[in-house]
């Protein structure tokens, strides 16, 4: 079977067409030929037998009266049979009375001992022999033997077989032609498809397309192939984009991680030198405290960066765990604002808080604090020193919170992607940061069963709105259902 599989499609088509056309045709021709050849033989046999029977009828008297002249006359009449070579009348004791030999042909061949009764016929390669008993009035007077040549019969059969052979050759040629047409129809187009695939594989060019020439199965194949190329091209573009984003992130991350290190190193070196000179105590408590405060600020910044990176890694691997408990969102918010009071003073920004009553729900306080810090930090960062308004409320089992600044705002086309990893709406050089804050904030809100959105216009500030179910994530209800993984962050 391996050799069959190794054949080309064209060869297989040819073989199948050969079998499909030649086998029935061959069987049909074979049956017809066998029947016709048998009919040819029977034709000769019946013609000769009939002549023998008729001549035998008229030979009884000649045999009865041992009349050789009359017997010869009878035999001479048989000479009109074109195939007759030899004829002989024998009496009942097998003694020849008269015989006829056609001139120029070989004589009688010896015959075996014959049965006394009935006609005897033998057809061999070169001769037909018929021995007809001569009977009159119930008395057997002898027998008439006729020997005919089968040369003409053989010639007729050979001509017939030649005709059959020509038909078979014609059918074979026809099947070859059909196979060639089919090959043009199928394999040529498949090869065109393969050529396109080769270009794609060798040159990595996904922009080539297969030309569709028909609406049949091969046309469908071409369509599918082209669809696949479109999809591959899209994914390749996406992969390249992802690589570009990650490389940019790496450069930003290394820059961000290095930024706090330089002042940190300088402060530590200056303190080390002072300690070495023994002048550390001369600097005064205020200065020392300022230096240590700077060091711890840079350390916090580093710590935040590293935690953010760890959070991203947890979120992407689906390992963000929530520790749910009864939390007052308002209290969390007050703490966060309090924590930022120094930065507010430095930026000259006022955060106004509009709260009516506590908003309590089942949430993870540490994670929510991360979200609040990020939103407030962004508002400070991009708020251009203008006031920031924060509102908290609750309606129909959903807590909501909005943080509004009046800073640079976010262009409409950028609003969708600011929640993606390593994305930001503004340039890196100008603002710094890893671009991870909103991604982490959105992941935390989503893992609580809530959602986050932004309303903004370029240059007109931005409002980030969070909505959280007070019962906590619906898939982690107090009923104690098995905790499921939070939905994918993105």
């Amino acid at each position, binding site marked *: 079977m391996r050799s069959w599989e190794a054949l080309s499609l064209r060869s297989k088509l040819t073989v199948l067409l050969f079998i499909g056309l030649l086998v029935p045709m061959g069987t049909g021709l074979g049956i017809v030929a066998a029947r016709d050849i048998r009919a040819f033989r029977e034709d000769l046999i019946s013609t000769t037998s009939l002549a023998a029977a008729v001549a035998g009828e008229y030979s009884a*008297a*000649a045999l*009865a009266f041992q009349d050789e002249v009359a017997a010869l006359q009878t035999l001479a009449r048989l000479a009109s049979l074109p195939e007759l070579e030899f004829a002989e009348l024998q009496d009942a*004791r097998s003694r020849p009375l008269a015989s006829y030999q056609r001139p120029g042909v070989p004589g009688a061949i010896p015959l075996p001992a014959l049965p006394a009764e009935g006609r005897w016929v033998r057809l061999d390669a070169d001769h037909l022999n018929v021995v007809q008993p001569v009977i*009159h*009035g119930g008395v057997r007077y002898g027998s008439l033997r006729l020997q005919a040549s089968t040369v003409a019969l053989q010639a007729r059969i050979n001509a017939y077989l030649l005709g059959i052979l020509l038909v078979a050759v014609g059918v074979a040629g026809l099947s070859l032609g059909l196979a060639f047409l089919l090959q043009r129809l199928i394999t040529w187009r498949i090869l065109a498809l393969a050529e396109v695939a080769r270009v794609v594989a060798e040159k990595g060019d996904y922009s080539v397309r297969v030309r569709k020439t028909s609406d049949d199965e091969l046309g469908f194949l071409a369509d599918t192939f082209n669809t696949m190329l479109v999809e591959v091209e899209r994914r390749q573009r996406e992969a390249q984009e992802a690589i570009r984003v990650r490389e940019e992130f790496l450069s930003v991350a290394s820059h961000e991680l290095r930024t706090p290190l330089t002042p940190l190193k300088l402060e530590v070196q200056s303190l080390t030198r002072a300690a070495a000179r023994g002048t550390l105590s001369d600097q005064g408590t205020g200065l020392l405290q300022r230096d240590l405060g700077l060091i711890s600020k840079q350390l916090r910044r580093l710590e935040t960066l590293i935690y953010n990176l760890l959070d991203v890694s947890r979120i992407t691997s689906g390992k963000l765990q929530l520790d749910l408990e009864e939390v007052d969102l308002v209290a969390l918010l007050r703490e966060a604002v309090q924590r930022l009071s120094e930065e507010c003073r430095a930026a000259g920004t006022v955060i106004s808080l509009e709260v009516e009553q506590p908003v309590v729900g089942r949430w993870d306080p540490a994670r929510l604090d991360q979200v609040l810090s990020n939103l407030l930090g962004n508002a400070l960062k991009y708020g251009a020193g203008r006031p920031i308004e924060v509102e908290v409320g609750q309606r129909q089992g959903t807590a909501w919170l909005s943080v509004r600044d009046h800073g640079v705002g976010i262009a409409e086309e950028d609003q969708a992607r600011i929640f993606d990893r390593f994305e930001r709406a503004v340039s890196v050089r100008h603002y710094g940061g890893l671009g991870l804050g909103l991604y982490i904030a959105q992941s935390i809100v989503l893992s609580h069963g809530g959602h986050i959105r932004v309303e903004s216009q370029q240059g007109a500030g931005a409002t980030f709105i969070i909505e959280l179910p007070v019962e906590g994530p619906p898939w982690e209800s107090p009923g104690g259902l098995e905790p499921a993984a939070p939905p994918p962050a993105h």
Partner: protein
Amino acid sequence: MRSQSMRRFIPALAAFGLLQGVAWAQASAPAEAELKAEFLERFTRFIDWPEGGFKSPESPFALCLLGQTPLEPYLTRMARTRRIKDRSIQVRMLQGPGEVEGCAMVWIPPEASDSLAQVLERTAGKAILTVGDTAGLAERGAHISMKREGTRLTFDINVAQAKRSGLRFSSQLLQLGHVVGGEVPP
């Protein structure tokens, strides 16, 4: 039926075969007589007698001899061993043409050829086969007359006479013999 006739026929044929080679060449009288007797019997095989030609199904086949003939002993012997038209053979010696009544076949030897006219007169319109071996006998009105042609024994047949008598001659017999007496059957 067939094997019976075969069994009856074979010894006769054996004798006949012997005659062919030896007796004919010598042309001796007894051999010639035996051959002619044999011919008489063979003629009956190729001639059919009309229905009612015999008195009853059991009636013998009356083979009548018009006067003394060398055929007589052979025919007598034949009458013991064979049958003609599935009837027993009865050989009758006739004293004269007046006694032909009741015969199926009349043999007219050369000595009796002068009385042919009387025989024909008596047999006219009756199914009685008249055979002789005198030259020109058939032309003169007998059904068959044997004659010698070289070494062969042949015979003439008067077909017109055969038609008148109601005897049906086989075409094979007509082919074998010489047809005389003018009229050829259609």
